[in-house]
């Protein structure tokens, strides 16, 4: 009986962290799309200040769970952007200077505030089709109010962003400035993991295995 209870304790000890640690499945990624994004680059800063966007689209597991197209704005400031060479195999990296951010707003409400650290910036010119891509991960304290759109962000989650500036008027070689009349933003993040039944079953199976191995060693 004593042996059984010790097994039960082990089972619980192993199972509980497993449930908590298990990440969301690979497909379980939440996404925010920002079509109609207008960015400019000048004086070492990429800015959208604050710009009306076509819409903000909220996706969970590839299904649209929210959509806002009236009075939605992007307010973006990325500091410390160096000159950007054309078609370089390696992207340039921003300085990571503090005070850089990506904000999404609906009327006066800030839906999402992402403090920005270092980002990669790349400029491609394919036979006159010019595009600048800004990508990276967000570090720092994220604040959000997405309750109306069914999304939740865990501040500890990795949030990846990509902003694409298309329809460019460019200045300088390497690029010292641009005006983009259209582009898209894409923000994806792992939601707070919920212990699904599958995860629970997996945890229990892993725990049972661990208990088995432990008992075998003891005997």
């Amino acid at each position, binding site marked *: 009986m004593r042996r059984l209870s010790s097994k039960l304790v082990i089972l619980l000890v192993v199972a509980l962290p497993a449930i908590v640690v298990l990440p969301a499945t690979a497909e379980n*990624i939440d996404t925010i799309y920002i*079509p109609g994004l207008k960015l400019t680059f000048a004086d070492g800063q990429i800015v959208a200040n604050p710009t009306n966007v076509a819409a903000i689209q909220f996706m969970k597991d590839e299904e649209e769970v929210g959509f806002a197209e009236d009075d939605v704005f992007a307010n973006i400031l990325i500091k410390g952007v160096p000159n950007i060479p054309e078609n370089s195999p390696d992207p340039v990296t921003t300085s990571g200077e503090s005070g850089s951010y990506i904000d999404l707003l609906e009327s006066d409400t800030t839906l999402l505030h992402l403090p920005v650290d270092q980002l990669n910036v*790349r400029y491609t010119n394919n036979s006159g*089709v010019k595009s600048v*891509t800004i990508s990276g*991960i967000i570090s720092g304290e994220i604040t959000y109010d997405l309750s109306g759109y069914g999304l939740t962000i865990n501040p500890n989650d990795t949030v990846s962003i990509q902003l694409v500036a298309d329809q460019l008027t460019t200045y300088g070689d390497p690029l010292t400035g641009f005006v983009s009349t259209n582009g*898209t933003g894409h923000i994806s993040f792992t939601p707070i993991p919920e212990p699904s039944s599958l995860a629970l079953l997996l945890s229990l199976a892993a725990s049972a295995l661990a208990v088995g191995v432990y008992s075998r060693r003891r005997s």
Partner: protein
Amino acid sequence: MKAPMRRLQFIIIVAGLIALPVPAAFASVSVDIQITGLDFTYDESQDGSLFDANSILGRTGNSADATRATRAYFYLGGEKAGSSIAKVYVDFLMRGIHNIPKDGGIATTTSTGQQLFGFDLYDQYFNCILSLNLDTVTASYTRDASGPVLQFSFSSGGPSVGVVSQNLPYGLFLDEGQLISVRVSSEGGSVKDIAYDGNYLSSFNTLGGTGAVYGFQVPEPASFAALLIIGLLGLEIGRRIKSRANRNLTRT
């Protein structure tokens, strides 16, 4: 009678000069289409093909060969031309994208002139609203701390490649005489099942990428504007002749 005629000629010339810049302005109005929630696949072993996730086949008239995307947005001159359309279909294939460096970089292809098809967009009822043939492809691949971040950009344009058909909403009509470009991209966590062969990417899937088509509105409104201006001038001339005749009658 000579003096009034000269004055009229002067008015016509001045009005014509004022009207001239209008067609030029109309000619450069951009047409943009953006697509969200686009799934696609890259398979190096199939002649370096990048295609919509459901099937490498396309332009078959079969919706099963196209892939459903979440929304398409339409813009004229950078402003929304109308409401977005939900649940559109995208059908595309680009071939010949080889040697995309494993650690990030750029691969450019040259046109083979033997593309099976290019980039087709269908509305929610699977009516084709845009069909493009494509040309040169540039694929750029960036890796960073967020994991693989992929962006592909490729272009089609000019009269030699051009538009196969178009039936865009909101009065949009792409000018085939100007550059038309297409871009699809995958970001951060949307890239799945990435595989390598030596120093190069061999395959991956993208769930929920984005796409875009950029071009210019056909300068149809310019001729309309010119006709309108000519009509107004005609009216003005008629009015002036009539009032002068009335004035002469009064004097006599």
